[in-house]
Each structure stands twice: as C-alpha cells, then as structure tokens.
C-alpha cells in the first residue's frame, strides 16, 4: 500500500521542501517482530478452536474470524517486509510485472484484513447483544448454519471490496466509502455495548452488587472500544488527509507519521486475542490442554 498511501518516501527531489517534516521511519525489525507475534497468537487461537469440539459454537467462530483477519494483516506486513528486503538487495525490479502484481495482491490482502477485522468486531458485538437481550431464543436465532452464512457473506463482501478498492484506489468515492465504514462500525459497536452495559448495570442494582463491579464493566468497555479507536483511527484519518489535502503542510506533517499508524494496526492484531479470545476461560483451558498434551507427547 506504500505506493498509494505514502508518496513522500522518495524525497530526493530537490524542488520540494519536505525536509521540515521528514517521514518518520521505523526500523523494519519492529514491524517484523510485531507481525510475527500477531501471526503466532492468532494461530494459537485458531488451533485451540479447531481442536476442541466444545469450542465450536457461534461465538468462537466469530472470534476465529477476527483472528483470521488479524493474521492476514500481520502476514501482509511480513510479506511486504520480505519484498522490500529483496528489493533493497537488488533481486527485484522496481516496475516489473511480478512486482506490480505482487503489490496489488498484497494491497488487496491488506484491505481485506482491515475490512474483515472491522466486520468481525461488529459481528462479535452483535452476537453478544443477542445473547443478552434474546437469551432464550439465542439457539434458534444463531444456529451454526446461520453463523456460516453470516461469515461467508462478510468475507465475500470484504474480498470483493478489497479487490474493488485496489482497482479504483485513486477515486474519491472509494476513499469516502472506506473511511466512512470506520465511524459507522464504531457507532454500531458503541451502541450495542452501551445498551448491554446499561442492562447489566440496572441488573446489578437490583441484586445490590458492589459498585466496583460496575466500574470494572466501564473499564472493560473502555478498553474494548479504546483499543479499536486508537489502533484504527490514525490510519483512517491518514487516508482522508491524503485524499483531500495532500499539499497542505499540516497534512504533510501528519502523513509523515504513516509508519507509526501502520504499526498501530499491527499492534491491534497483537492485542485483539488478549481482549477477545483469551478472556474466555474455556479457550484458556483449551489452550493449556493443547500445550500440556503436546508436552506429554514430546516426553514419550
């Protein structure tokens, strides 16, 4: 995505006075480390759900979908780093056919992982909402078949959007669609969780739970939504600025932090398993069982 989003990496042109806000360059090792962590964690989540029959319920399928999209985002970063290294070592031409195609495929993968992440988070929130507000009909509302249909629809839509956005990447409606998805999803998720929170709070009052429990609820909700906002908003804002004010010096200074914003998205892939998947005690137990079973096998 670098060629689309960050045109300022090549600053050898003396006609432009960009030195006042040079692009912040992070060492590739940081990206590599974060991405590898992201891939490993999400792989663990996937393996734990695949290997345990009792975790094969709609809720964990949605968490798996989130893990897959995070894994794809981290894989994209790793592949991009490898290609950059090959390019720097001189094995790749800057404008060859292979490089162009590879770049397009990687961009699609990136957008696919972005959209997949956003939609998975929304679907997880919706699933929790149905669990609370339609608890007794949950089984009939959220069958395995419906879960599969929902996930298939989401991923087909994300793949189609990813390809479309890469093909039409420099048109304004594409950018507007992409950047408007983020606040819409945020509002949707915020609304669902706040409503759930209100119900739990009113129930807490009825059974006189300590107010500390409600404080914990507020903290949890803030963490869930705060991580989402902090990791995604900078990048989305970058895309907006790049489309609408590429020549403004203020905007240029913001866009010089592109690599930091990209790193935040990688961090989101690393943090998500901890706030969604590993919070579930069953998944933690399945994970421990997996580790100890493997250890027992190796001991023999």
């Amino acid at each position, binding site marked *: 995505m*670098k*060629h689309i989003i960050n*045109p300022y*990496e*090549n600053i*050898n042109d003396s006609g432009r006075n960009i030195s*006042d806000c040079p692009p912040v360059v992070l060492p590739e090792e940081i990206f590599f480390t974060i991405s590898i962590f992201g891939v490993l964690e999400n792989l663990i989540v996937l393996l734990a759900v695949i290997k345990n029959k*009792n975790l094969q319920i709609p*809720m964990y399928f949605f968490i798996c979908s989130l893990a897959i999209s995070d894994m794809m985002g981290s894989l994209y970063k790793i592949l*991009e780093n490898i290609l950059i290294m090959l390019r720097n070592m001189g094995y790749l031409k*800057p404008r060859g056919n292979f*490089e162009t195609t590879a770049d397009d495929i990687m961009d699609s993968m990136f957008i696919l992982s972005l959209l997949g992440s956003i939609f998975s988070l929304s679907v997880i929130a919706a699933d*929790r909402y149905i*669990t*609370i507000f339609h*608890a*007794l009909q949950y*089984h009939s509302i959220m*069958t395995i078949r419906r879960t599969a249909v929902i996930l298939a629809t989401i991923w087909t839509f994300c793949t189609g959007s990813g390809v479309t956005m890469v093909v039409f990447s420099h*048109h304004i409606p594409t950018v507007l669609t992409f950047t408007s998805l983020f606040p819409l999803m945020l509002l949707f998720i915020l609304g669902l*969780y*706040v409503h*759930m*929170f*209100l*119900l*739990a*709070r*009113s*129930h807490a009052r*009825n*059974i*006189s*739970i*300590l*107010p500390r*429990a409600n*404080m*914990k*609820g*507020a903290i*949890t*909700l*803030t963490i*869930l939504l*705060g991580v989402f*906002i902090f990791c995604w*908003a*900078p990048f989305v*804002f970058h895309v907006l*600025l790049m489309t609408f004010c*590429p*020549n403004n*010096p*203020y905007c*240029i200074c*913001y866009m010089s932090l592109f690599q930091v914003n990209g790193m935040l998205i990688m961090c989101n892939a690393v943090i998500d398993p901890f706030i969604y998947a590993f*919070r*579930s*005690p069953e998944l933690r137990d399945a994970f421990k069982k997996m580790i100890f079973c493997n250890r027992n096998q190796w001991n023999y």
Partner: protein
Amino acid sequence: MSVQKLISNRTSQQSASNSDYTWEYEYYEIGPVSFEGLKANKYSIVIGFWVGLAVFVIFMFFVLTLLTKTGAPHQDNAESSEKRFRMNSFVSDFGRPLEPDKLFSRQGNEESRSLFHCYINEVDHLDRPKSCHQTTALDNDVHFQEAPRSSGRPEEELSRLMKFELPNFINTDQNSFGDDDLLISDPPILENKPVFQTPHKDLD
C-alpha cells in the same frame, strides 16, 4: 490525483529509479510545498488529532462510570424490566427475598419458573442437571453469579454452593474465575450441545 499521476509518471521515472530504499512503482508528484509562514506548529494536526482521540475515549469512560452511579433513562421501560425480571427470577431466592407474588404474576413466568427450578435442582444435587435439558431451550451454562451477601443468613450457604455468573458485567469479589469478568468472558454461554460442558466452573 489521477491527473497528477498522468503528468508526473513520465518525469518521475528517472528520479525514482535512483532510490534504493523505497518500494514503489508509481510516484505521485505533489508539487513543491512550502513550509514558510505557518501560523501554528507544523505538527498541530497530529497533536490535535491525538488529543481529540484521547479526550473522546476519556469522555466515554466518564460517561460509563457516571451511568454506573446514576439511573438510566430507560430503566422503567417495560421491556427492560421484563428482562430484569427474568434475571431476577433466577437469583431471587438466593438473593434478597423478592415478593413471591411478583415472581409468578407476570406473563411468561412459566419458562422462568422452569428454569428457576432447574437451578434449584442443580443446587440440590450438585451434579449435572440432566432434567433441565428437556424443560428448557436454554442450556444450563446460563448461570448467574451473585455475591453472598452477609454471613449468617440461611441463603448464604445456598448462594455459596451455587455460583451464578452474570453474563457480562457483574462480578464479585468472590469470583471463582479470577479476573475474567464482564464483557471479557462470554455472555451467558449458550451452547448448542446438550452436554453440560463446564460444570466445574459453576459449581466449584
């Protein structure tokens, strides 16, 4: 931007091919940008953006904590009170004593009552409640957690035996599973399978 791309692609080919450290095949010529005469700090958008983001998140947190202290406007909504009633019917006998006529006077209390008795059976036997699966669509992993109120009350022992886990937000100090609470762990774990998966968690 596409117009600029057409103009600049030809001129940029030579300069871009000299770069050793960038990975790009299209170079968007943006034109000379002058940094002279800026009224504010050049990083003002960056600072403004991050400050705005932090303020928004903190504001959201304070709104949530305020909601924990004050009442919610929809509290008297019939729908929410019915949900509350459903949840209350599970814990009523093990929490504060609720009026028995209120417990059974509403519509739809049949189902609540059957679920309620499932939990009573669960307490009595402290083993897998097989009888509940036929009576209710809701799996027995829906459990509610409640703080034992005070020592020395007769319900206290029952509540200790039977740990309810409230779906998301409510947690108590005697929480048996440590730090998973609230939205973090699952909402009432409604499984498709009739097998009671994790009894140890509820019944300790």
